[in-house]
């Protein structure tokens, strides 16, 4: 249960070792580099942004190639493949791939170019198809498409904008009082257009065309010297050529796809290099030496020093960090508790001087989560699912693994509470027994059934809440004592404890409480006196001591009174734990609703089929929605009620310089 202790590490070495040292640090991944402030005389920084950009671009190109390969030669991926995590790859295999990086880069480029070529082909094919569609009505015309005429005659090729027969066209000419010799042949006619070829003497052309134009005639400016039929054939030929080419490229893609693994390595290689150059750009360098400083967890410091000093001829110095300096935070907990690190992390890592709440929180988290979901079968399902995933995908990414482990534990706790309250898919056992077997069987609750006695569970919920809150206040006190502020601890924590415990002791034997709990508590007389004393000491103490930093006595007491008003906060905090009851009941009752609905068709085969159908859908939904509810509200109880007592967060996470890869994790052999 702790925040890892950080130390500062300073490394100085000759420039010739620079590459090796940086690579070693990167592969160890335990140092967060502090960018050089650039104030040292005689040192300067290198501008590496151009190289860095180049490497990032290369990595992006390879990624793009991989995406294209996935599109044309899909790799089979299971539904749960996202759980697998990045593969581990031996150092040697990685280095081997690097030696051939030029080859693989050309593969990546070829893939990208091929995709471009395919896109072009596709566009060209579409264009040609449009052309063919335009020419098709002219199929029966047996002269070259760009014919304009002979020495004496003009040939007009064009369309009229609706359907005409040959006679109708001649009639049009008569209508317009044209009596020049004209030869017309209709090539094709459809509802929207009539394609025709008209031959007339050159001197009549203008007149004839003008006459027809009134009726919607327009020349079609073909350029091809071929007849339409011939032209279409050539276009079709070209299309099939392009299609063939595309097919060839596709086939080539599947050849190229065998390089997929190596392309991934290459992409990660350039990603690693880009990061290295980013760090290199922040180093202080002189003519012959370079200098680097960073944070390193104490437990890893020895290893780093050993490696750099003995193997790489560097001068390394490790120093403790002065108290007041803000250091990056890395949490370290036991196997069970580290599963809630993600939850702490999303609230905020411990700030300077705060303790890591993970350890204590982990127990409460699992406990409260189970209480909210509280159904043995649901707990079993969640635990089994998470357990199987954990066993089946041992290489899962760390963060995901921790979350799934958390749900595994929460499932166990849910199972426990489910048995305590006698919930197994709600009241499934008794419903099935009475519907199909006509007997009375119930799963006995080990403790009690909440729906029969909600008041009792409400009181227990508040009791658990009180323990949780007192734990929070206790941690606040612990932190003050640790920092040597004994008096502050007494005033700010001790007095509150006295006040609250006194109040509780006064409340429990009262008639009000008896009517709620349905049971009268009688305390011995001395306890009553102690309760009154504690309450009064606490109350007066808080009024007087809360504002102790103010000189003005009136202001001091006003502040004290305001602080006492904080008791309402405590009341609402404790009441807030009533959600344990509400959510627990919600799971159970909705499960019962599902079971009741499912059993409506009675027994028999049809009834059983209907039962199973409703059962599956209903309980899946109930589990999903209550899992969400339990997760959200457990978080809320931790964040608002528990953390509210002692924890602020806001620490900066430890971000070591390491190999941030996308596809593989490189195994180092040391």
């Amino acid at each position: 249960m702790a925040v890892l202790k950080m130390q500062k590490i300073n490394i100085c070495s000759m420039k010739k070792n620079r590459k090796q040292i940086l690579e070693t640090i990167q592969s160890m991944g335990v140092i967060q580099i502090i960018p050089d402030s650039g104030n040292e005389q005689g040192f300067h920084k290198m501008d590496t942004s151009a190289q860095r950009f180049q490497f990032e671009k290369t990595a992006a190109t390879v990624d793009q190639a991989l995406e294209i390969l996935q599109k044309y030669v899909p790799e089979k991926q299971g539904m749960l493949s996202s759980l697998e995590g990045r593969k581990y790859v031996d150092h040697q295999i990685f280095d081997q791939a690097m030696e051939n990086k030029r080859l693989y880069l050309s593969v990546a480029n070829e893939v990208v170019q091929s995709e471009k070529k395919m896109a072009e082909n596709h566009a060209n094919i579409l264009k040609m198809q449009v052309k063919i569609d335009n020419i098709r009505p002219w199929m029966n015309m047996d002269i070259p498409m760009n014919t304009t005429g002979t020495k004496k005659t003009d040939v007009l090729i064009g369309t009229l904008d609706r359907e005409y027969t040959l006679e109708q066209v001649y009639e049009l000419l008569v209508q317009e009082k044209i009596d020049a010799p004209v030869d017309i042949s209709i090539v094709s006619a459809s509802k929207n257009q009539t394609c025709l070829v008209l031959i007339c003497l050159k001197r009549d052309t203008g007149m004839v065309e003008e006459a027809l134009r009134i009726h919607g005639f327009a020349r079609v400016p073909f350029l091809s010297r071929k007849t339409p039929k011939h032209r279409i054939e050539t276009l079709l030929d070209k299309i099939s050529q392009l299609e063939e080419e595309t097919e060839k490229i596709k086939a080539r893609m599947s050849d190229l796809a065998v390089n997929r693994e190596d392309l991934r390595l290459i992409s990660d290689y350039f990603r690693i290099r880009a990061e290295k150059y980013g760090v290199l750009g922040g180093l202080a360098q002189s003519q012959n030496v370079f200098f680097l400083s960073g944070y390193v967890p104490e437990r890893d410091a020895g290893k780093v020093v050993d490696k750099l000093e003995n193997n790489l001829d560097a001068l390394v110095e490790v120093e403790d960090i002065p108290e007041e300096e803000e250091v990056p935070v890395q949490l370290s907990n036991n196997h069970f508790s580290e599963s809630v690190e993600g939850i702490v992390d999303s609230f905020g890592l411990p700030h300077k001087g705060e303790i890591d709440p993970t350890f204590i929180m982990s127990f409460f988290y699992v406990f409260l989560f189970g209480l909210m979901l509280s159904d043995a079968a649901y707990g079993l399902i969640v635990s089994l699912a998470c357990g199987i995933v954990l066993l089946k995908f041992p290489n899962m990414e760390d963060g995901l693994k921790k979350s799934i482990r958390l749900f595994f534990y929460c499932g166990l706790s849910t199972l426990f509470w489910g048995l305590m309250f006698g919930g197994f898919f709600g009241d499934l056992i008794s419903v099935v027994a009475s519907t199909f077997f006509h007997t009375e069987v119930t799963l006995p609750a080990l403790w009690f059934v909440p729906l029969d006695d909600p008041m009792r569970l409400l009181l227990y919920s508040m009791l658990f809440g009180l323990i949780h809150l007192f734990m929070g206040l206790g941690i606040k006190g612990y932190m003050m004592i640790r920092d040597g502020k004994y008096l502050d601890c007494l005033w700010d924590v001790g007095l509150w404890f006295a006040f609250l415990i006194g109040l509780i002791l006064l409340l429990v034997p009262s008639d009000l409480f008896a009517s709620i709990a349905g049971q009268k508590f009688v305390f011995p007389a001395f306890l009553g006196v102690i309760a009154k004393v504690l309450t009064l000491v606490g109350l007066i103490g808080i009024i007087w001591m809360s504002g102790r930093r103010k000189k003005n006595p009136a202001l001091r007491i006003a502040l004290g009174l305001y602080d006492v008003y904080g008791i309402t906060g405590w009341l609402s905090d404790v009441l807030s734990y009533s959600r344990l009851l509400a959510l627990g009941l919600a799971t159970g009752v909705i499960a019962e609703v599902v079971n009741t609905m499912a059993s409506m068709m009675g027994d028999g085969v049809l009834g059983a089929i209907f039962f199973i159908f409703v059962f599956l859908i209903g309980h899946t939904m109930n589990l999903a929605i209550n899992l969400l509810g339990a997760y959200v509200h457990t978080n809320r109880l931790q964040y608002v009620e528990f953390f509210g007592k002692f924890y602020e967060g806001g620490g900066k996470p430890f971000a070591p310089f390491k190999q941030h890869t996308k596809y593989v994790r490189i195994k180092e052999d040391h």
Partner: protein
Amino acid sequence: MSDLGIVFALLGAATAVLLAGAGSAIGVGIAGQAAAGVVTEDPGKFAKVLILQLLPGTQGIYGLLVGFIVLSNIGLLGGGVADISLQTGLLIFAACLPIGLVGLISAIFQGRTAVASIGIVAKKPDQFAKSMLFPAMVETYAILALLISILSVTSIKI
């Protein structure tokens, strides 16, 4: 007059389910519109915004819960309807009001808060845990109302 008892009891169950359910429908609806907007920009945030969209859905479940307890208490589900006096009927009706009304209002406001939280996820996905907290705050009051409704409904002797 005494026949009206069962009517009021059923009216109570209906009120709880109806108002709380309507509130949740509105809340989940407006949150869903915001969620859909985020997913058009970045489909990767689907799971996160879906969780936020679902948060105002619980009031409907609380209403159902109270409604169901009422129905099973007055024996409508088992077939043997209990003999309920007018006074008991009205008591049940009153007991159902908190979750009905608070459910309606809190679900709508929780929906609006969820919309704002979806905005957080759209811009800063790493702040998801905190964004979940704001709608959860509103829910507290629905839970308190649920508590009183359940406690009253279960303690009314039939």
